[in-house]
């Protein structure tokens, strides 16, 4: 972490409450007084409106739409193949993504995708701080949705705090029950939709709703229902603060040129209540209204500087903009800016954002490289593959006429959606004769069913009189009759010591 990032957290005021009145106190400040194990301090985020809240609503709608609609997209792959555009067929051991189909041994495409995703996350974090956390992470999206429900049922921050303090009554019970019922409904829909990525959606949704689907399906729907409900309804910011590893090492991607949510202390301090009609000379713009703390979904005070808990959602920016508008001061006391620029501004200069930094270029180059390798691998993905298992017992078979035979099990992977024929040939041992067990076909043509692996036993025979070294490298080739595509695999022909 660069020194500029280490903004010391100011000690809480010596006399708590002095000058604060009923001010909102950040979770961090409250927790600092706790023993080794802390009670969870419940956060009651206040509703807020503004530019970043709007962006968050728009992205929430977009991501939920993608999540719920993708399983219903169709993609024609011809007869015999599933027509779901995105499908992970675990029992069939295939994954489909639009025109791409991968077999289990091609899971490196998935690895490549994950590497790309990680690099993109690093890049986004270096550029814009925790935009992933604040805007796109499912934990954030679903928590936002749950908070919306909570606000509609129980009211805004103050109403919710009052409700929680109230003794139990029918009215309170009704509100709480309604909230949890809606939450569970959303959780059920979330878990239900997740399953649709693993089965054929249109054909399975009916049985699922009628209770006639496989018990395994209900188990997973139940599992994802419970996790969604717990994580988005109960755990919320605790996930980001205590469970997620990402906040713990994101500081490695941030530097003083990353654009992050930051309180402009040079402009805001010294903070203090402001009486209408009095001037602004000799004081900062922050009127210590603690609105920024009240709206924060993780309950922190952004004025304490960079904190592990901050998910970079920008809601405090919206809140403070509203306050500045009311008191007639320029907006963006809390803003998106680089720490370098903040340091410069504190000294009366400005420091333009440096977008092109070595780490950015390195991430871009790595993304380009991994992407290019993946595109090339996809473009050159063979439709036929051959693999060979050499018999180990016996290593060789002496024949009655003095000839010598080795036996192999071959597997031909037909990655097309039609039955295909292949001609087998042996290379590297001119005297050898190739034969397929059980076939007296001189043409050595074998076939494989659509999208399946065909297994054959083949024999390589060297006639009597040939003197061979103990091990001769050979290659078996399977030529796809229709396209001429050849799959090869190497092995050895073993002979007793001469």
């Amino acid at each position, binding site marked *: 972490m660069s020194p500029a990032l280490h903004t010391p957290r100011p*000690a809480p005021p010596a006399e708590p409450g002095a000058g604060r009145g009923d001010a909102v106190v950040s979770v961090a400040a409250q927790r600092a007084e706790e023993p080794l194990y*802390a009670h*969870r301090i419940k956060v009651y985020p206040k509703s807020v409106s503004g530019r970043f809240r709007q962006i968050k609503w728009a992205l929430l709608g977009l991501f939920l739409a993608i999540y719920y609609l993708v399983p219903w997209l169709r993609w024609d792959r011809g007869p015999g193949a599933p027509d779901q555009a995105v499908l992970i067929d675990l029992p069939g051991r295939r994954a489909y993504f639009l025109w791409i189909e991968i077999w289990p041994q091609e899971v490196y495409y998935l690895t490549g995708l994950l590497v790309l995703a990680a690099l993109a996350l690093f890049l986004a974090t270096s550029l814009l701080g925790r935009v992933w956390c604040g805007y796109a992470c499912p934990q954030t999206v679903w928590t936002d949705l749950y908070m919306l429900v909570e606000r509609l049922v129980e009211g805004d921050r103050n109403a919710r705090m009052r409700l929680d303090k109230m003794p139990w009554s029918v009215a309170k019970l009704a509100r709480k029950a309604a909230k949890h019922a809606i939450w569970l409904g959303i959780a059920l829909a979330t878990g239900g939709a997740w399953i649709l990525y693993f089965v054929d959606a249109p054909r399975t949704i009916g049985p699922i709703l009628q209770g006639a689907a496989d018990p395994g399906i209900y188990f997973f729907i139940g599992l994802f229902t419970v996790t969604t409900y717990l994580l988005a309804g109960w755990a919320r910011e605790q996930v980001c603060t205590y469970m997620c590893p990402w906040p713990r090492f994101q500081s490695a991607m941030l530097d003083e040129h990353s654009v992050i949510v930051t309180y402009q202390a040079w402009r805001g301090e010294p903070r203090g209540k402001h009486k209408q009609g009095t001037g602004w000379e000799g004081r900062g713009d922050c009127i210590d209204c603690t609105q920024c703390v009240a709206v924060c979904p993780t309950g922190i005070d952004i004025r304490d500087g960079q904190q592990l808990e901050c998910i970079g959602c920008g809601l405090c920016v919206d809140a403070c903009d509203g306050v500045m508008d009311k008191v007639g001061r320029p907006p963006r006391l809390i803003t998106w800016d680089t720490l370098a620029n903040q340091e410069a501004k504190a000294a009366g200069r400005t420091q333009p954002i440096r977008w092109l930094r070595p780490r950015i270029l390195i991430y871009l180059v790595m993304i380009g490289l991994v992407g290019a390798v993946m595109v090339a691998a996809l473009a050159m993905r063979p439709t036929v593959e051959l693999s060979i298992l050499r018999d180990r017992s*016996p290593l060789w078979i002496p024949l009655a006429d003095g000839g010598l035979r080795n*036996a192999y099990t071959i597997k031909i992977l037909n990655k097309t959606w039609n039955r295909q024929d292949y001609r087998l040939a042996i290379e590297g041992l001119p005297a050898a004769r190739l034969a397929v067990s*059980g076939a007296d076909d001189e043409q050595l043509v074998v076939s494989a069913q659509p999208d399946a692996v065909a297994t054959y036993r083949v024999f390589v025979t060297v006639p009597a009189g040939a003197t061979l070294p103990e091990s001769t490298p050979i290659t078996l080739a399977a030529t796809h009759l229709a396209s001429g595509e050849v799959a090869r695999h190497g092995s050895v022909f073993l002979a007793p010591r001469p």
Partner: protein
Amino acid sequence: MPTKIEKDAVTGTMTTGHEWDGIRELNTPLPKWWLWVFYACIAWSLGYFVLYPTLPGVGGWLGWSQRAELADRMAAERARVQPMLDRIRTTAVADIPRSGDLHGFAIAGGRAAFADNCAPCHGAGAAGAKGGFPSLVDDEWIWGGDLDAIGRTIAFGVRSAHADTRQSQMPRFGLDGMLTPAQISDTAEYVLTLSGRAAVPAAAERGRTIFADQCVACHGEAGRGNLELGAPSLADRIWLYGGDKASIERSIASARGGVMPAWSGRLDEATIRMLTLYVHSLGGGR
């Protein structure tokens, strides 16, 4: 060394009271619910301890056991493959190789049955073993290598107790005084020439007459053997009991007679058929 719990001047955070070489630890409290999750895991493990077999010799309350589960699954699997086994029993063996999925099933079933029953003598890869356990992967057969012959050998055995067993007995030319040691040596010398190996011509010439008198009836004029009688070929490179002169002399003097059990009473019809097809597919099948 615990010190005073106090407020750290720089961060405003309380310390834990732990100090190592002057370095004090700030208190970053663990959430209580985390602790409760830990206790819940302990409670869960206690439930697990009671419900499932944990201590040796003490079953769990649920009565679950791995052995019973295995038995269940085996029974379920047997029920699942029963229709295939029925088809194997009712289809002519010669037709099975042409019937796609059934052949694949038979070969797989044969491989499993071979590993369970045949591998101890014939070897895991069916390569046989010295001392009378013939290789099943080469192209030499004593009692025949077509599907029918292989099936009969497996079902009834060789010199077994079964009424239909493969049965043949070579005379003990030496032990029973039918040939003198010199004559046996000459005969062995001649037998070597059958597979084209250099020998002492005069001895071989003497052996030829003895061979014509004593051996041709079973092993044939050119020593090619006779599948009907289980008389092995003496004219090729494959020797069940060794092909050097001393081994051949011993075979002539005291005869050989390996035994294979009959499997018809021990294995069911479908398994014998699967074994037949598997052995036939190993490379020597006719």
